[in-house]
């Protein structure tokens, strides 16, 4: 059971990695993935997430083999895209 995690832009720089794998993934949400890779309690409101290349929310379920990404608002973004 593993999940690939990617970080982009200043999140990548701040956390010091662009890609990692959670090898012992036992199921959970995007928020759970964030807790494991960041050490923070909650996914900050200004951090966007995607699961398998589609925008996702903190409560989106993450399954074995999924690719989860976290990134800042996109260039023109003011909050989460529709």
């Amino acid at each position, binding site marked *: 059971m593993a999940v690939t995690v990617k970080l982009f*832009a200043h999140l990548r720089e701040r956390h010091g990695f662009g890609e990692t794998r959670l090898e012992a993934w036992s199921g959970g949400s995007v928020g759970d993935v964030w807790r494991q890779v960041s050490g923070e309690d909650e996914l900050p409101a200004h951090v966007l997430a995607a699961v398998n290349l589609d925008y996702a929310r903190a409560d989106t379920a993450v399954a074995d083999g999924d690719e989860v990404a976290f990134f800042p608002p996109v260039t023109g973004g003011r909050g989460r895209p529709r």
Partner: protein
Amino acid sequence: MMIEVRDTGFDPWSEVAAYQQAVLGVGQFGATAVFIGTMRDFNDDDRVAAMYLEHYPGMTERALERIADEHVHAHDLLDVCVVHRVGDITPGEPIVVVAAWAAHRREAFAACRGIMEDLKSKAPFWKREERASGSRWVEHNTPG
């Protein structure tokens, strides 16, 4: 439809002209609306020497394709072409070109403008600017 993310420079004029020549049927389209975004050497009244545009390979292309598809259907377009630059970019270099072909100008304009707005608000691109004051990630953009 052509959607491309490139890490090398391109000439938007010859790019769109070549695509039109290769794909569009003579006499079918009456209106072509094109937008080209070009890197400026200033922003917020500050000099910008260079920028780095990061994207999410796979997700960015998928987002651009969805945006283009939506507008092709919403505005009854004949075709659309989007080329977006990523990587290190210097002032004067084209960043994005969007071209929309339709029978009439109303649809071509609306689609070209709509694709640009959606691209700016939905497509995963992140910009780091090199200014006199240092390097910084930009998390807002000029409106409209």
